[in-house]
Structure formats: structure tokens, C-alpha cells
């Protein structure tokens, strides 16, 4: 009986185009659009050298320190400036034509000319201020205690950036991942569509086919269980296809803990299926209404998990953090995040435990509703 029901259920679901579209093709299409829209998001965060000029006057030619310092920060791939050494008139012209963000005049003190305020102008000013402080400090030490000049020079050479942008798992920071993780969470919850159908096909007061199954000499819950196993198998397979597409085609980085990523996806898929079954069991309306309810809740969960904008997630984190723990989409997104970013498993296990709790609750309520074998009305 198991093979009979399981095999036919697979055929039924695989031929149900609407369900297959929403549970597999829609997430694949959305992932492709995400990739097209977000592929340049990372590159905008890369630092581009700032175009500046320095006026080629007598003081500049005599100021070896300034020439050397500017030359050093204008070399290599990670240079700070694209430097042009030009006349004062040329520098003015370049600034007016927005070819440079500012120019330096080697006077005493150094003069910085800009025609607007902005990030690049602030960086040039910060550079000029820093240079002036260092020169001033060096001159003061030379004037008061020349013996300490060596220490001062060493401290300048040993300048260290004490803050580094790293993740604890060694993974590269990547803001785009959040969108793909929430997309995968959404796809997992879309397993609910299959759950809705499963309940409709076993509740005699919802569909004539279910009434026929209820009249057959088979245990209703056994039939439901076999049938649900086929549904979950199909949805997990769909999620594996999506995951493979994300990893191998779109090159989305899921870190190195592949087995746990797969486990999270499987649990997410079961959570989605059980959520759909739960919604279908508690909603005493048509299948279309149930799907509408499921879709609304799922999209709301994904929105709150930051699928449309990461700011939403931070607003919730700040104002109602408990909401993050009752949102299955957020639990899944954060589970993928923690696998990518953290070496410890505390956050991951917390999220997976809560999600498993939800599955138990959804399944229990669904069981209590569908276990009845006679209906008040059909």
C-alpha cells in the first residue's frame, strides 16, 4: 500500500503545474533576478582611488616630504589617490570640470581647495590634516629634543590598523548573501503549497477525491502519512535543485559546512510543508482561500526576515527582537547566516531547535484536526 500511494502521489504532484511552478520554478526565477540585480552590489563597496591634483609651484618642488608622501599614496592597486601634478590654473580648471575632487597647494600650512563637500573631499582633508600633524610633530621634536626623533620616526612607520573586517569562520563578509538566504528560506516555506494540497486531498469535507479516499478500506492517517512522505520528498528534491543552482550556477557562497546547510534546507522544507498543512487544516474555506492565506503569511515572514530590505530586519532587531524568533523565514535565514559566519553552533542550534519546535506544533495541531473520521457536514 505504501508504494502504491507514494508512487501515485509523486505522479499527482509532479503533474500539478501550479504547485511545481510556485515551489520550484518561481524560486529559481527569483534567484536569477536577484543575481542580476545584486551582482554589482559588492563592487560598489570597493574603494575607488580619488582623483586629486597638486599645484606644481616652487614650494611643492622644494617640499621633498610632501612629494614623497603623495607619491607613496598614489601608487599600486590599493592606492588612495590618482594624482596629477599641474599648474594652479590647470588645477582650477580640472576642479571646475569635476575631473578632480580637490587639489592641494603646497603652502605653509598646506592649502586644500574643494568646490563641494562629500566623502572623497573628507578623505583628502583627512589626509592633509594627518600630513600636517605629522610634519608639525616632527618639527617640534627636532626643535626640542632631537634625540627622540628616531622613536617618532619608528612610530610613524609602525602605524597599524587595529580594526579588521573579518568573520569568525574566516568567510568573506558579503552583504548580498542575506538576500539569497532569505530567498532560500522563502522557497522552503513554499513547501506549504504542497501541504495545503495534501490536506485538501484527505479531508472529505473539502474535496470529492478526499471523500472517495475516506470511503476506501485504508486507514486515513496512514494514507495521509504515505502521501505526505511523497510530498516532502518532492519538495526536498526541489530545494536541492535550487541549492545546487545557487551554489554552482549563481556562485552564492554558503560557506564550508555543506552537510549542515543541507540539513537546514531539509528541516526548512519540512517546516514549510507542515506550516501549509497546519494553515490548510485550521482554515475552513476553499483551497484558493487557504493558498491566499499561506502566501500572505509566507511573504510577510520573508519581508520581516529582510528579503526585500535588510533594514527591516534591523528595525525588528532593535524594536521587537522576539519577533525574529517566531518567524520561520528569519530562523532559516539566520541559520544559514550563522553557518556561514560563525565557527560556533550556538546560534544555529537555537534556530534549528525553535524551527523543529514549530514543526512539532504544526504537525500536532494538523493531526488533531484531521484525525476525525466523520464530518459534521460535507
Amino acid at each position, binding site marked *: *500500500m505504501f508504494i*502504491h500511494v507514494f508512487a*501515485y502521489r509523486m*505522479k*499527482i*504532484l*509532479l*503533474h*500539478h503545474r501550479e504547485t511545481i511552478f510556485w515551489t520550484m520554478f518561481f524560486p529559481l526565477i527569483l534567484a536569477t533576478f536577484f543575481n542580476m540585480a545584486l551582482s554589482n552590489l559588492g563592487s560598489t563597496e570597493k574603494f575607488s582611488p580619488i582623483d586629486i591634483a597638486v599645484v606644481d609651484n616652487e614650494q611643492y618642488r622644494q617640499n621633498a616630504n610632501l612629494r614623497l608622501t603623495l607619491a607613496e599614496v598614489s601608487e599600486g592597486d590599493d592606492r588612495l589617490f590618482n594624482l596629477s601634478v599641474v599648474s594652479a590654473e590647470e588645477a582650477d580648471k580640472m576642479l571646475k570640470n569635476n575631473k578632480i575632487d580637490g587639489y592641494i597647494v603646497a603652502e605653509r600650512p598646506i592649502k586644500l581647495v574643494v568646490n563641494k563637500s562629500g566623502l572623497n573631499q573628507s578623505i583628502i582633508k583627512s589626509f592633509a590634516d594627518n600630513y600636517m600633524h605629522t610634519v608639525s610633530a616632527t618639527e617640534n621634536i627636532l626643535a626640542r629634543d632631537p634625540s627622540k626623533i628616531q622613536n617618532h620616526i619608528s612610530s610613524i612607520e609602525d602605524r597599524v590598523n587595529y580594526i579588521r573586517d573579518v568573520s569568525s569562520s574566516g568567510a568573506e563578509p558579503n552583504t548580498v548573501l542575506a538576500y539569497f538566504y532569505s530567498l532560500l528560506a522563502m522557497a522552503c516555506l513554499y513547501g506549504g503549497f504542497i501541504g495545503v494540497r495534501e490536506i485538501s486531498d484527505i479531508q*472529505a469535507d473539502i*474535496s*470529492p*477525491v478526499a*471523500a*472517495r*479516499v*475516506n*470511503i*476506501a*478500506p*485504508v*486507514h*486515513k492517517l496512514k*494514507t495521509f502519512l504515505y502521501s505526505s512522505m511523497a510530498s516532502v520528498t518532492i519538495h526536498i528534491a526541489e530545494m536541492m535543485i535550487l541549492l545546487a543552482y545557487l551554489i554552482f550556477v549563481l556562485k552564492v557562497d554558503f560557506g564550508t559546512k555543506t552537510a549542515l546547510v543541507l540539513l537546514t534546507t531539509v528541516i526548512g522544507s519540512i517546516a514549510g510543508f507542515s506550516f501549509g498543512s497546519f494553515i490548510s487544516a485550521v482554515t475552513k474555506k476553499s483551497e484558493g482561500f487557504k493558498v491566499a492565506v499561506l502566501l500572505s503569511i509566507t511573504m510577510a515572514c520573508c519581508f520581516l526576515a529582510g528579503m526585500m530590505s535588510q533594514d527591516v530586519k534591523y528595525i525588528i532587531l532593535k524594536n521587537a527582537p522576539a519577533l525574529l524568533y517566531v518567524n520561520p523565514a528569519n530562523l532559516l535565514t539566520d541559520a544559514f547566516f550563522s553557518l556561514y559566519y560563525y565557527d560556533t553552533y550556538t546560534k544555529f542550534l537555537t534556530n534549528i531547535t525553535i524551527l523543529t519546535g514549530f514543526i512539532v506544533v504544526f504537525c500536532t495541531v494538523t493531526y488533531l484536526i484531521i484525525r476525525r*473520521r*466523520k*464530518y*459534521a*457536514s*460535507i
Partner: protein
Amino acid sequence: MIVRVRDLVKRYGDILALDHLSFSIEEGEIFGLLGPNGSGKTTAINCILSLLKYDKGEIEIFGQPMRPDAYDIKRNIGIVMQNVAVYNELTVYQNIDYFCGLYVKDKNTRKKLVDEAVEFTGLGEYIRFYPKKLSGGLLRRLNIACGIAHKPKLIILDEPTVAVDPQSRNRILEGILELNRHGATIIYTSHYMDEVERICSRIMIIDRGREIATGTSDELKAMISLGEKITVESYSITEAQISAIRELHGITSVEYKDNKLIIKSEKGTNNLETVLDFIRKENIHFGRIYSEMPTLNDVFLEITGKELRD
């Protein structure tokens, strides 16, 4: 005794859907449940099948109390629902095989049964078709095939000919008679009295969940006072002539409406010749004239005061 229903009561809130309904069905019968839409036929069937909760009463099938987990009883029941109950994602053959598989485990036996059901319902040319590609009549036949493929001893058909073309309807009715000839006991619900009259060996007329009358077609017709009904199509009958016809021997009522003169006679009398003589004598021009014996609709009308198709 195949089915025994005693004192069945079913309420939907304040509405009494089944009002102390009782009947029994012997092996080999085609038992018709006849009544207008909303009379309680489908509710009675759903209660018999243990799909619906009921407030009072007892239901026995094959001598055993019917329960949702009475799998031995269910194994011998076939149901053809009022609404077509098939999967749109499976082909004709797969649908029959799937539902048959819920009753028959052995694959070879099942294949044989499915092939027989396909042949029986004349769906051989359509086995690879999906239900959406089938006409209403073929869909109804598929619905029947799914219900009877496992060769049940008791077959319940709930309005199986609704929205079916005459050709398919005839085929379905012939099929039911053949199933009965092969030994199946049948419960047939319908609001089409001609169908019930044609195939059922015994008929129960129900209205508002109550039994109106039970018996064979002839027994039911014998229950009422009405006899022959003569209809004369004519444009020129006067009130005086109508009154004169009303005075003829054995006439119970005369009604002239929409250019039709309807003359009803007492049970057991034959007034066609008398009426014809009167028409000739009065030189009344007429189009058609015909005589009918009472129908089940007349039975329903006389007992309830309303038409069966209301």
C-alpha cells in the same frame, strides 16, 4: 439483508436533513432513492458511508454496524459520487488503477480488474487521456469506473447522470443494470423519475428528509387515487363544454390552461373513448390528443402537493 437503516436523524443546525428515515435493502435489489434536490438523498448516502455524523439512528451493512474503520465492509462497497471524484493529474487508466489499488493489493488481480472496468465503461480509447480532456459524459463514466473497478457487492450511485448527454446517460443506465445482473446490489439516487422508474426494482420517495412512500413503481402508482390522464390540445373549448366534461362518468378533474385541456380520471377507469365521443359530438377542433398513465411525479404531487422537480 444488505443494508438496514433505522430511525436515522441528521440535523444541520436548525434544519432537519433526515427525519427518522428507515429502510432496508435486500441482496440483488436496485433500490432507488427518489426526491427533489435538497430532499436528503446525498445526506442519507453520506451517513450510510460513515462520512457524516448523524444525531440518531442505526446503520448496518452486510449485517454489521457501519463505522469509519469497518474496513471489511468498506472493501465490498463501491461509491460513485455526485461530484466527479478523480485526480486531474492522472490519466484515465491511472485514476482507475489508483482507486482500485486502495481495495486490491495484488498487482496482477488489479490489472485485470482495471482492464475490465475500462472495457465495461467503454473508456478503452481514452485510457491515456487526462480528465480535463474528457467530455462530461466520459468523465461520469470514469467516475463510475473508479467506483466499481474492485467489483463491490454493494454499489452506491449518487446522481451519476447529472449533466450527462442522452447517449452517455443510456450507457450508464444500461451499465448499472448489467452490474446488477452480475450480482451487485445497487442504491441509486436521482431526481430524474424516468431513470428511477426504468432501472429500480424498488423505490423510496423522500422529501425534506422524510420517507414519502416506498414500493415498486406500480405499487407507488397504486397508492394514489389518480388514474388515466388525457390531454387534448385545442384552441376553442368553451366554459360550458368544460363543465359538461366534468360531469362525465369517472372524471375527477378538468383543467384548461395554455390551450391544453387536461382531464384526470378515477383510478381504474378508462375515459379516452368517452372523451373522444364528446369532442366529436361538440365538434371541437383539436390538434393532438393523448392519454398517459400516472407517473411517479403524480405520486409525489398527490402526496406532497408539489412537483417532484420543484
